[in-house]
């Protein structure tokens, strides 16, 4: 007889968002899975040099996993195969920073959501692929990181209103953005808002509408405003405060 009850093991595909050392030689993995959304798992003995998991159970790896279901919050990893290891991303400081920012966004924005969100999963994999293809390319710039966050917000159901005033519905003269209102606002509704340029508006619309790979560069001021807009929208509506990728633009 198999030591494991087969009905309690299941396969899933996942990206490792974050790892935490646990106990003597174990590691807790925060996973974003294609089939089950956010899951936590424990990888026993993984920090020993001869662990059969090798170097796979590390942040940003895309894996085919077999997990053993447990009664608590943490499943146990019984096997892991690499789908994508993103070696170029991993060899670059910029690549790692951008991947960590993307994974941090998924971790916090979709925390506690154990339902699958295929668009969010695909978006994350696509983004990691682009970063891996060129760690010094457009995906890791402030514009690339802000665009990822916008698309993630859309996938999570928190996309900002960009077509008309988020308070009164007027469609002319959108000169400000309000996180509380969750979108652009007109001059009569602009209490609690910040100035929002036409370039920032264009940047957000195209970032939401175009595939990640075809992203058009925005000017620094526009990207910074777009980053602030999405950051404040998520703070008000998703109640998460994420590090601001647009802060990197100042450097």
């Amino acid at each position, binding site marked *: 007889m198999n030591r494991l009850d087969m009905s309690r093991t299941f396969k899933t595909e996942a990206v490792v*968002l*974050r*790892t935490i050392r*646990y*106990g*003597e030689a174990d590691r807790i993995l925060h996973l974003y899975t294609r089939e089950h959304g956010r899951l936590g798992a424990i990888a026993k003995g993984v920090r020993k*040099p*001869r662990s*059969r*998991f*090798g*170097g*796979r159970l*590390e*942040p*940003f790896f895309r894996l085919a996993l077999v997990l053993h279901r447990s009664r608590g919050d943490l499943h146990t990893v019984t096997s892991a195969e*690499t789908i994508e*290891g993103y*070696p170029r991303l*991993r*060899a*670059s*400081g910029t690549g*790692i*920073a951008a991947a*960590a*920012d993307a*994974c*941090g966004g998924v*971790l916090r924005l979709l925390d506690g959501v154990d339902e699958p969100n295929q668009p969010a999963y695909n978006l994350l994999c696509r983004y990691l692929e682009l970063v891996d293809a060129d760690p010094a390319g457009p995906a890791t710039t402030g514009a690339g990181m802000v665009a990822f966050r916008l698309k993630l917000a859309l996938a999570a159901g928190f996309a900002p209103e960009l077509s008309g005033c988020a308070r009164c519905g007027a469609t002319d003269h959108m000169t400000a953005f309000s996180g509380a209102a969750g979108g652009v606002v007109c001059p009569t509704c602009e209490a609690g808002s910040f100035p929002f340029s036409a370039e920032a508006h264009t940047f957000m619309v195209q970032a939401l509408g175009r595939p990640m790979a075809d992203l058009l560069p925005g000017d620094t001021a526009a990207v910074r405003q777009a980053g602030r807009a999405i950051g404040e929208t998520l703070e008000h509506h998703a109640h998460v405060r994420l*590090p601001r990728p647009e802060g990197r633009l100042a450097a």
Partner: protein
Amino acid sequence: MSEGPAPLSRLTAELSQLPGIGRRTAQRLAFHILRSDESDARSLAEAIVEVKEKVGLCEVCFNLAEGPRCRICEDPSREVSLICVVEEPADVIPIERTHEYRGLYHVLGGALSPIDGIDAEDLRIAELRRRVEGGGILEVILATNPTTTGEATASHIADLIREQTQVTRLAAGLPVGADLEHADEVTLGRAMAGRSNV
């Protein structure tokens, strides 16, 4: 929920704060301490107090030290032109056990991990830079863990100091005594990339 006498609950609660100790293990340990000799229990309590009172961090390398400097920095036979950079004080022990290294150390206090909010300022990277800029350092060996965060830390430090001194990274590869067929592709890939002349 009754947990027995208050001092026992308190001990259980304190023990369960330790890493890797769950509520049930904490309870078992607490009962064990309760049953043990008074002198054993006192000796454990004293050891805990003593470690906090007497062990601090070395002012030079941030390894554990019983005075202002650790034993390695105090040892006149060590090679002062070599610095081996590790994440945690516990990482010094296995390297010392190899007897292959006679230089000094620098303990960072962790690894860069933006997702956990650990940035360069949270580690002792500026202190390392100052040691290197002080001169007389021929080589800095980066011995952070071969993990994503450890590699990110190593590449960040290498970028900062490679102008001033030779920077090397601990080799990564196959564990001695293991079979090739059981090696995972990540480890094997690193071993292939880091192959050396024989």
